[in-house]
């Protein structure tokens, strides 16, 4: 019997010929990540409780200062300091200081630190993002991370794999975000609970690596253990000149066993949103168009890479944010910010009246720089809209792609981007 990509990576990590879904394995980890909220407890558990003095391999660990940094208050400054000190004491090679890294899930791929065929863990639920690069990547807790840091290995239950086949191509305006919101809407927030989501099909061959990362990023929103994609020319081109280690791509066997195969016609997927208060509350854009907004947020590990910002800027060019609405744009990394500056995108954002921030998780998790108050309505390019995610439990959050977010900021209500582009630019009216 053949194996899926996920099974092959776990088998290799466990030093076994083969594994089956349901097997519990102890597997070697190729790369690990932690950040300012998860490194302090992991470091404490590793040193004080597990009694380890050093980490297994300082070259295979990345640490970012992204969640509450630049410190939003004195307590966060302490977490930042503990994260910094631990990284220094352990000699962690891939430590990214405030202002030099950004959100972990953008930073690791852009620095070529997570590679095809590898077994990657991150003490953050969206670590499943990296799977677009043909690896097994999953989110873990702080005690898990302490174990990995001390030993370089961790226990895993081999997941069943669900295969998602996307036929045809996405239509104009419809993005990877719309597709994954649609899929989660179909299967539910526990539709892939503890399982692997293997994405494949024609539609993926026509979207770039950043769009693919948006899709695997949201595997966790369906409850999945990991999201994974095949290796192809797009993967190779993305990694050329970036990959920090040699790598070996992995592919699923023709006779691999899937628990279930879902087929979608990508061409039939419409622009859409997830309505409050759950990522699986999908609705076509037409159903919610006209919904009045207080805030629009373009940011997060899901949708704030350079291609996302380009699409937002294309809509915002020569337009102004509507009165009564605030638009907050948070690039997902320092490199993204540098590129946005080079291309003049930041000028477009500022001219439109947007607040442009440093790279941080910020408003996405109700941390800082855009936390919502009671009863406020926000359209956000992020990944989660459970009650209280972005601030007050009674705030309402809609999830969308960046072009829809930009257009809606201009209109003040949820709007199709083509409507804003058809309007006379501000100043010429």
């Amino acid at each position, binding site marked *: 019997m053949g194996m899926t990509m996920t099974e092959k990576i776990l088998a290799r990590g466990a030093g076994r010929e083969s594994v089956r879904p349901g097997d519990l394995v102890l597997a070697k980890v190729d790369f690990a990540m932690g950040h300012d909220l998860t490194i302090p*407890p992991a470091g404490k558990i590793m040193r004080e409780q597990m009694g380890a003095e050093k980490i297994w391999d300082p070259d295979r660990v990345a640490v970012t200062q992204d969640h509450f940094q630049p410190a939003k208050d004195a*307590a966060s400054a302490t977490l930042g300091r503990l994260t910094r000190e631990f990284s220094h004491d352990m000699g962690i090679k891939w430590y990214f200081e405030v202002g030099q890294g950004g959100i972990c899930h953008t930073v690791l791929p852009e620095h070529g630190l997570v590679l095809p065929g590898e077994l990657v863990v991150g003490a953050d639920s969206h670590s499943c993002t990296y799977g677009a690069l043909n690896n097994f990547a999953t989110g873990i807790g702080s005690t898990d991370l302490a174990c990995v840091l001390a030993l370089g290995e961790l226990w895993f239950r081999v997941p069943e794999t669900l295969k998602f086949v996307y036929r045809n191509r996405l239509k104009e305006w419809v993005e990877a975000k719309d597709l994954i919101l649609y899929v989660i809407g179909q299967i539910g927030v526990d539709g892939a609970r503890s399982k692997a989501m293997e994405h494949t099909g024609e539609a993926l061959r026509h979207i770039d690596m950043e769009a693919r990362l948006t899709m695997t990023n949201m595997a966790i929103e369906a409850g999945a253990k990991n999201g994974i994609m095949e290796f192809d020319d797009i993967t190779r081109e993305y990694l050329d000149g970036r990959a920090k280690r040699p790598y070996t791509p992995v592919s699923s066997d023709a006779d691999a066993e899937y628990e279930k195969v879902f087929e979608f016609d990508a061409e039939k997927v419409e622009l859409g949103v997830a309505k409050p208060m759950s990522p699986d509350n999908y609705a076509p854009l037409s159903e919610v168009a006209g919904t009045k907004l207080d805030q629009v947020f373009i940011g997060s590990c899901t949708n704030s890479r350079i291609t996302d910002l380009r699409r937002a800027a294309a809509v915002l060019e020569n337009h102004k944010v509507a009165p009564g609405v605030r638009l907050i744009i948070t690039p997902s990394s320092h490199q993204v910010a540098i590129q946005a500056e080079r291309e003049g995108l930041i000028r477009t954002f500022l001219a439109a009246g947007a607040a442009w921030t440093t790279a941080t998780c910020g408003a996405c998790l109700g941390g800082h720089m855009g936390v919502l108050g009671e009863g406020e309505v926000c359209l956000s390019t992020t990944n989660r809209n459970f009650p209280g995610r972005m601030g007050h439990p009674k705030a309402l959050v809609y999830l969308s792609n960046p072009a829809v977010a930009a257009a809606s900021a201009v209109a003040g209500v949820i709007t199709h981007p083509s409507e804003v582009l058809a309007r006379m630019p501000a100043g010429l009216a």
Partner: protein
Amino acid sequence: MTLPKVVRGRAWKFADNIDTDQIIPAKYAIYSLDEKELGKHAMEGVPGRDTWAQGVTEGDILVGGSNFGCGSSREIAPVAIRGAGISLVIADSFARIFFRNAINMGYPIMQSPQAAEAVEEGDELEIDLEQGIIRNFTKGDEYRAEAFPQFMTDLLKMGGLVPWVRKRLEERRRKSSATSG
């Protein structure tokens, strides 16, 4: 810290898909290293439960629906629930990271669709952890919990991943001193 054999307490009932932002809103992540402080804010993000932690008596039992603890990987979710005084979490099913975090912490959890369906808030429960049996004194009912794979049961019994790693580190040290000696 080893597992108790029997746990008794009053049930607190929660719905399906309770996510980690509701279990412990991210703003309290600044108290990541303070279990008691986290405990004061446990479940605060669940609409209508903003003062829930104040009503918990040490030893009470939390009963959730399906996909309990979905969302973020934050280990402070089970830490906050433990900090609030909850002795055991039962659910129809758990989201995977919450599940592994609890096991890694040596914090008892049980998967029992039967109990999640039948138990009502305030019911008096007694749980036999070894047998995987949940007794409901209020209703005179009994429910079974699903058995975990052996490795997970062993981890829970030994107190979680910390003692397991300590043991493994010691084995490695012994091996390396044996080869160098």
